[in-house]
């Protein structure tokens, strides 16, 4: 065994079974015995927090992370990532493929993990100051106009196409700001309408989750990973459900595709013109 062929970790350590080097007898996560102690004494959310942060959460931290997990566990079958998973399910694809599809789509800058981290960056820049937020949004829109002219209205953490902040977003913000009555969540709950007025569009669920992730002091990379993981339950169950319903009961938008530059129509038009010209002659 070469020393170079080792995995270095601050997270995980294993003790092998007697003389069986390939089988672990005891596994430690940040120094805690996973199967000897954590399994018995901790909850899933506490363990999840430990994995990402290396320390046990406080009661408030655990409760806030649990609320995040619950709020985003199922964005519902209209969500793009869930639709991707259902496209897998309806065609009878591997379960893993359905989840991979959800992850691939759910990584995006519109509604996905990409948007979440950008929203966190916006909250951090604003630093609970309306004036700073205004400047940050202005700067963001300036950059977007240059780098992403196709999506001038996208603003991370805000609902581009909504008329008003919807009830689930308000309920989630309200619930989370009660669990954690400080930080960005609390500031956002108190100033939501002013924030929305500056943005020109309503707050979205990604904005609330980004505020919660920021309050939990997750890095943007950690938050993106968590966001991707925690939205998978909905992808899984909707994919499984569509496998049962089958493709005949799943949207195909049969009449929805409008092909421009269709060669058959070009030929038809040309023939039509030829006939017209002949008749004129």
């Amino acid at each position, binding site marked *: 065994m070469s020393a170079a*062929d080792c995995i270095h970790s601050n997270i*995980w350590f294993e003790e092998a079974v007697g003389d069986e080097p390939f089988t672990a007898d005891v596994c430690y996560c940040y120094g805690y015995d996973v199967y000897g*102690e954590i399994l018995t004494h901790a909850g899933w959310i506490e363990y999840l927090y430990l994995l990402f942060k290396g320390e046990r959460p406080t009661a408030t931290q655990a409760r806030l992370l649990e609320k995040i997990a619950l709020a985003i566990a199922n964005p519902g079958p209209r969500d793009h990532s869930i639709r991707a998973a259902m496209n897998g399910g309806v065609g009878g694809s591997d379960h893993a493929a359905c989840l991979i599809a959800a992850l691939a789509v759910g990584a995006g800058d519109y509604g996905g993990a990409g948007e979440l981290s950008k929203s966190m960056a916006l909250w951090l820049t604003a630093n609970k100051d309306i004036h700073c937020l205004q400047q940050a949004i202005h700067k963001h829109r300036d950059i977007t106009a240059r780098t992403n002219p196709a999506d001038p209205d996208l603003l991370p953490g805000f609902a581009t196409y909504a008329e008003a902040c919807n009830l689930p977003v308000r309920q989630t913000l309200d619930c989370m700001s009660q669990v954690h009555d400080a930080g960005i969540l609390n500031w956002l709950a108190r100033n939501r309408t002013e924030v929305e007025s500056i943005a020109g569009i309503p707050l979205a669920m990604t904005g609330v989750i980004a505020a919660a992730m920021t309050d939990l002091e997750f890095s943007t990379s950690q938050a993106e990973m968590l966001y991707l993981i925690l939205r998978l339950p909905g992808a899984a169950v909707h994919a499984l459900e569509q496998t049962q319903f089958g493709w005949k009961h799943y949207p195909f938008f049969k009449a929805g595709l409008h092909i421009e530059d269709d060669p058959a129509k070009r030929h038809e038009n040309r023939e039509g013109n030829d006939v017209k010209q002949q008749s004129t002659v």
Partner: protein
Amino acid sequence: MSNSNQLYDAADKWITSMGGWIPGERVVYRGKDLHTELHELDWLALFVYGITGRYFTENQLTVLNAVWTCTSFPDPRIWNNGVVALAGTARSSASLGISAALAISDAGIYGNGPCVQALEFVLRAAAATDSGVKLEVFIQQELDQGKTIYGFGRPLTGVDERIPHLMSVIKTNGLHEGKFLSLILKTAKYLHQDRRKLQLNVAGIFAGLAADMGFTAEEYNLFIVPLFLAGMPPIFLEASSKPAGTFFPLRCEQIVYHGKQRRRWTEPTKRHTASAG
């Protein structure tokens, strides 16, 4: 206060200039009938037509084909290929393993990321030299700004064994004197003289070629999605045919732990009930 009209306009309707399937009749592919107008194209020609909407010459296609061929390493130790081997050894499926491997090929230190960055570099360099800036000055500015010059340097080895073979195909097909490829080769000379002694890697050559063929960064990003694909099936076949779990199995002691000492979960921990942070 909203842009909701865009959703109303798009509901139940996808207007496309890229094409689609008229069930039971025909397929339209970027303004052409797939089965009567494009059916004689080879797969690579169709692929680049789909990306750019342009037809490429035989010489260009030969060189583009060589780009893919020269990156098809059936070595399971390379990070993306390792995913294929792990899928095989873990008895997962070929499509899962290979699609995941292609996804991670969009990496930072190798693969799609540096390839696209190299293209962006050569486009910037050309814009600078077109405006009268000397190439050496431009490169030095990039270095002074702390930018990585993609297309130069390589993990594990500085030497890129692919370059002479690819250059030979490029010369044979008369594509060696393109403006952007020439800029890359001049950059290589300059960087080799620099104290860092950065050597050209094949991503630099690819970038010069792609720019000479008129690829935009977005088009090039799509072209290189299957860059490593042909190296992967042999890896899956072999890993699947050997006993399960035997692809470089790791001993417990191969995890070198640098973290916290052993501690008890039941020990009280510092609680900050007032703050989530």
